[in-house]
């Protein structure tokens, strides 16, 4: 009889058995990974992320308007209009404007400048700028899912 040190070549029966086991294991894992595809959403509930903000002349030059429902400030400076999100870039609380004009987040104390730049706290990046556009009916529209470069302005 072959000893432990010189094992027999795998007999055919064992080979078939092992093939069955390993293909079952492989199939199981493939199925498990495939099933994980289901909870990965293909369509998001908020996929229609555009909100109308009203007529653009409501936002006069030199003003800043708070829209709490939309969690943003619409600012009209020399260049034009831009929308500044108040969703903290740290972990998603809502930063509030202080009397000084700076934004402070209640959750872990991040501080942002008037323009949204990080001044302190754990936030890794500046407050987001959101895409503004004009709807065919002339209303100002904000796409809350589309971030834009901080230099972007909408001229009105």
């Amino acid at each position, binding site marked *: 009889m072959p000893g432990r040190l010189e094992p027999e070549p795998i007999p055919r029966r064992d080979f078939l058995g092992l093939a069955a086991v390993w293909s079952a294991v492989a199939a199981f894992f493939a199925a498990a990974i495939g099933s994980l595809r289901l909870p990965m959403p293909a369509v998001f509930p908020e996929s229609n992320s555009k909100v109308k903000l009203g007529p653009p002349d409501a936002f006069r030059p030199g003003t800043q308007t708070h829209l709490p429902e939309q969690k943003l400030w619409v600012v009209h400076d020399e260049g034009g209009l831009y929308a500044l999100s108040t969703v903290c870039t740290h*972990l998603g*609380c809502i930063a509030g404007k202080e009397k000084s004009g700076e934004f402070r987040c209640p*959750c872990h104390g991040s501080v942002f400048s008037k323009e949204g730049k990080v001044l302190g706290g754990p936030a890794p990046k500046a407050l987001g700028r959101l895409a503004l556009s004009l709807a065919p009916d002339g209303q100002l529209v904000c796409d809350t899912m589309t971030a834009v470069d901080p230099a972007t302005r909408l001229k009105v």
Partner: protein
Amino acid sequence: MTPLDTQSAPASEAPRPGGMSTFLANLLDVPRSLYDSIVRHGPPTSDRTKSQTVVSNFFLHVLPAHIHVDSLKFWATCGLGIVTGVLFGLLCVTGILLMVYYKPSVAEAYDSVKDIVFVVPTGRFMRNIHRWAAHAMVAFVILHMARVFYTSAYKAPRQFNWLIGMVLFVLTLGMSFTGYLLPWDQLAYWAITIGANIAQSPRELTDALGVTSWLDVGGMQKELLLGAHYVGQEALIRFYVLHVMVLPLATCIVLGAHMWRVRKDGGLARPEKPVPAVPPPVSVKELPASTRSWGLMAVVKGQSPHVGAEMEDTVPAYPGALYAIAALSMLTVAASLVLGYLFDAPLKELAAPTVPENPAKAPWYFLGLQELVSYSAFMGGVGIPGIVVLGLGLIPYLDREREDAGVWFSGRRGRTVAVASALFAVAWTVLQLWFTVRFGWLRNWYPEIPQLAITILNPGTVIVAVFALWSIATVQLTRSTRLGAIALFTCFLVSFAILTYFATVHRGPNWDFYWWPSMWPRH
């Protein structure tokens, strides 16, 4: 009465076979014969029938037939694992009762919890019990883990059961995290918003490396958890399914494996009695024929129980172990009922997605992490917890010194190391917190500093690095991996406690430092 007797009909008033009288006799005998059909052995008076009581009962079968006397002593376990298990059972019962009225929809969840509190008979009581038992379960899981660690009960052959325990630890945290959202009040909403964004925080790293556009692990995790980009209906239903179904079921299964392993690893860890150098050969026939599982275990090869080696120090598990478990269960349930009767579980205003709570605090066991998260989202929420879980899991594979399982702190030297490490951890953590509150951190000094620098170097990572060095130094000095492990574990445990306390008491609105919650500015 011997087992054989019970199977034959009572001899005394043997009726004529057949006919109505047999029927009546059988009818009268139903309670007895029913009992005898369930319990197929005599009353547990002898060693043998005591063993049979345990072995032939499905529910008692988690216990071995014989248990080592040392395992029954209070300081062997402090009963912590049992208490955790009882709490889990209590949570399942009260949880199912809550499910009768709870509605997992954004429009109705909050109102249904209000109904549970104000309308449903005993609803408030059940909810309170569920809440306090959930908190207690987390606390007891941690205590149980600490007991196992400090008594070296993770050492061979129990390494793998330690890993199973780690899974249970994570599952427990998962259950309590998912349960936290369900009431859909302000507390729930903002805690989960933060939690979900922590899941997204690997973005902090991928952003800093500039690879987010093609490898967005964080974003995927958040989408998987919430089914959306915000905490809404999709998130609520996902959390609900996880909370009432997936995680409890997984816990039941893993718990089964945990208990099974405790027995297969030879019962609870205990100090080894000096065993003769050459163990006397044990043959299956020599063993007391009391129970079949003893016979079976003798044939199992490998590191399973040293059958026969310590037989003289064991007692039948019935009734001693059973009494102990019953007493612990009574105490646990009684304490939960008293807490539930005296204290109401909080329920804040309805969730308002545009007005965060200020301060928005997670449940206490996550507050230590929240403090770390306030330095760096990725490190505090993913990086450091990941390192800690990984480190805990590796303990039994890195510290393989074989002596003294079942001895607290492995004796005097270990106790010294533990005390020294605790003092060191207190000193360092307090110093670090004082420094951060007083002087701020890199971003306050160099506003333009790249995020990557802060992610890598922040008060949290500094603490971890210092503790790692401390424990490496301990290994070097004492030439013992066990003492090094004690140093590291103690440091983390103590630091966790301090951070938790600090974030609970000394952090107020805007996460600012306050000496006392009564000093928070009122709005």
